[in-house]
């Protein structure tokens, strides 16, 4: 078995461990809800399994690093996987400070989703272009991802807070948006399911098209084409032809992926609603009914406090040092840079609102969710849509 196979297996082990740990955290809460007592034992096993998962994923990280010769954060798969790993790491850190099992019940599924999402991207080890060959890049990316993942824990805490305080019996804006967050998570599952199914089927269609600058190019669809590229012509087509042709400005392949994910996600969501006969928020609510709101609010605030300096260091300062070396200027208003700045400004506003306007509790929780939304936007949309210098370019 070669190093890269070992690496892949370790990642798989980690993934399974996270799944098991999630169930254990759920069990721990159920037990304690039922008996009204702390179930230290369950919690200990759960965090133990989580740690095993993290160690296994660290193993993946290190072996892949050794195999490829550079830090495995250089394409969409590698970076997103690492982001998932750091979220687990940040969760473990916060868990040992506050020991709230409900955190695990939310943080681990988020990490699982992120890793699953990551594994839908090409996993090949790809060599680095010259501008990426810099240890400052490694330091920058790892620190930035670490900061983002600690910030993500505040969204986890925010979600727990909202699950507890939002009244799900009466219709309200809060109830709607909370369920919207849940729906979004299901759509990510939809993306994973749709991609995996079409992958297993070995789906593949190739078209030529004319890009927005008027050049003829070729594109390969891995999902049945709902949308066709600008002036597309089939080279090799299977199953179906595109239903609608899009103008050159829109990448119809990506749109197809998004729509498939939405379709599958919506079906999954409806199925869950039909089977459970309640909102997804309501499914989770019993698990958080005994959390201390003050504490959860503090966890959310604390993770922003811990994460913000790390994020600043990684996403702005180290980034500037690298940019100065690679491109001769420390700042270039590249979309990815701008979105890092936006994330930073957003959390700065978060802290100021909390300090001077007293936005604590529910407001803070919503802000934390929005913050995580910006981080995800930077990871997903900026990489795939607003591609600039930072684009991992392997969509």
């Amino acid at each position, binding site marked *: 078995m070669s190093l890269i196979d070992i690496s892949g297996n370790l990642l798989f082990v980690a993934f399974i461990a996270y799944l098991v740990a999630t169930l254990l955290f759920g069990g721990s809460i159920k037990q304690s809800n039922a008996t009204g007592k*702390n179930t230290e034992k369950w919690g200990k096993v759960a965090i133990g399994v989580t740690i095993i998962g993290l160690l296994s994923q660290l193993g993946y990280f290190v072996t892949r690093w050794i195999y490829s010769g550079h830090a495995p954060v250089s394409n969409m798969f590698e970076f997103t996987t690492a982001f998932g790993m750091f979220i687990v790491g940040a969760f473990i850190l916060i868990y040992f400070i506050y020991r709230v099992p409900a955190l695990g019940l939310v943080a681990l599924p988020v990490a699982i989703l992120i890793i699953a999402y990551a594994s839908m991207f090409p996993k090949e080890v790809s060599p680095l272009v010259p501008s990426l*060959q810099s240890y400052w890049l490694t330091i920058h990316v790892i620190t930035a991802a670490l900061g983002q993942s600690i910030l993500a824990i505040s969204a986890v805490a925010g979600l727990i807070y909202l699950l507890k305080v939002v009244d799900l019996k009466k219709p309200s804006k809060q109830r709607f948006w909370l369920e919207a967050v849940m729906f979004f998570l299901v759509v990510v599952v939809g993306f994973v399911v749709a991609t995996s199914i079409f992958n297993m089927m070995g789906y593949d269609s190739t078209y030529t098209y004319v890009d927005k600058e008027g050049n003829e190019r070729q*594109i390969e669809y891995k999902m049945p084409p709902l949308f066709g590229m600008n002036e597309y012509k089939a080279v090799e087509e299977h199953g179906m032809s595109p239903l609608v042709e899009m103008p050159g400005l829109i990448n119809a392949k990506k749109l197809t992926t998004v729509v498939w994910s939405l379709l599958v996600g919506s079906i999954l969501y409806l199925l869950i609603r039909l089977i459970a006969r309640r909102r997804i928020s309501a499914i989770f609510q019993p698990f958080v009914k005994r959390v201390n709101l*003050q504490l959860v609010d*503090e966890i959310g605030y604390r993770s922003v*406090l*811990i994460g913000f*300096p790390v994020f600043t260091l990684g996403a702005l300062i180290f980034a*500037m040092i690298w940019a100065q070396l690679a491109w001769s200027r420390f700042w270039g208003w590249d979309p990815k840079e701008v979105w890092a700045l936006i994330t930073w400004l957003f959390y700065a506003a978060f802290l100021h609102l909390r300090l001077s306007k007293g936005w604590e509790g529910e407001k803070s929780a919503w802000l934390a969710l929005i913050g995580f939304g910006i981080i995800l936007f930077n990871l997903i949309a900026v990489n795939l849509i607003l591609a600039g210098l930072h684009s991992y370019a392997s969509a």
Partner: protein
Amino acid sequence: MENIICACGHSNPYGTKLCEKCGRPLTEEGKQTKVVDMRYDGTAIRSKTYNKTIIDKIWNFFSNVKVGIALIIITLVSASIGTILPQEMYVNAPEPSKAEYYEKVYGFFGKLYNSLGLSNLYSTWWFQILVGMLAISIIVASLDRGLPLHKSLKNQRVKRHESFMKRQRIIGEGQVSNPDETLDKVEQKMTELKYHVRRDGSALLAERGRFARYGPYINHVGLIIFLAGVMLRLVPGFYVDETIWIREGETRAIPGMDGYFIKNNKFILETHGDQPQDEQTNQGVNAKAKNYQTDVTLYKQPEGAIPGDIDNLEKLRDYSIRVNHPLKESGFALYQMNYRLNELRQMNFDLVNKATEDDSLGQIEIDLTNPKKEYDLGNGSSVQILVYTPDFSGFENGEPQTKTSIPNNPAFLFRMITPETPKGEVSFVEIRKPPLEPLGENKYRMKFAGAEMRNSSNFTIRKDSTIPILFVGGIIFMIGVVIGSYWNHRRLWLQAEPDGRVLMAAHVNKNMFSMKKDLDTVTTFAGLPPYEDQLDKSEDVKKSTKKKEGDNTL
């Protein structure tokens, strides 16, 4: 604006919320709430106290944190607008036609985006003013809050009034048998916990991590230094940003670096074995590239030499400029930015008889960087170059014209002299075209016999004297953020009343969780009455959904 005289007799500046001396709430609002607002320790925020002149009004506007937050949000939203379409500098089109590019590629929206200046958003006047206003807000708000807070923290009294104590988030009250002993024990334990303990009669103040309160002000100072550094780039002499294209073999004066010259010895492009993926070529990323490198030699003129005097260039050193490895010299740095491959450097021609193509009377090698007038082939044959146009674009009045000085499309007017044709035959040879024979049919012709190419490199020449300032600003900012985030200011007030009652209050500016741990330790150790968190209680009242809240392990 009158000063406020507290019940204890202390005179506080207008706007003070908690008496500077004893801590009694001074506002009606403060007197009614259960937990007082401890921001800035209840000092008067300066802006709120004076509001007379227009300067005061402007000052107060910027001092308002609400305004600051609004500015942050506006900056954030504006910055995001700039990412909707690529900024002008990233548009892959020549300078004059960028406007058309937006319209051509993005249609009406693109045209609108460009004409609104959004394609150059970050250097528009309004965006800069926005950032500038943010800077004003940071300075003014910090001055207005930081200074009074500093004064208040410095002059803290140990003894506070009961109404202050009771309005803290953490309070406790109860009887102890021996108040003095309790205070001693508290002092001992709190000192162990690294608190700084002060006592004043029967009152005790234990304090830890006060410097954490300065974190925000320190990081604001760092930010301002950083922004000032960015601004300084516009001052002449601080910032040089030049660019140069240089071909292999050429020596050029380096723009922006007076007296320095650079020679391009060789450009090297190394590739990884694999093919670029479609998506990557789409985005203009050359996936194959592994290394872009230019081997250069850096020269300097001797002291006092004037431009153009290149006889005594002094070789400084050889260097390989690669991406991520710029050449650094006396504050300047040269970066490998771009390259162009395969420009003609030398062309070879055989002089052949048209009838017997294969027999060459000899070959001439024309160095395009230095063509000669005449090439002697020996045996009575020679070739003269009458005209050379590096980038031939047609004839004008019978004269061959050149479009540029770059050998994109070289053409020559040759005169071929052979023993057979001693007067010479004239032939016009353009690359990849049959020769023209303006003076009648020739017996001989110049047959293309290969060429040599060379590459060019593009460097950016950068000097940024503001970097040290930015660095200092960045470090100060980080120190401030870390201090403000990773440390917290914890205080415990304890007062023994003559009747044996002990009053306890605690405050922490953040991270109540850790404070409570300290409190648990000290209350157990010193046998203090149990404390309560007034916010926990209020939440219970508010929600009153569950009987028992606050199982911390859940």
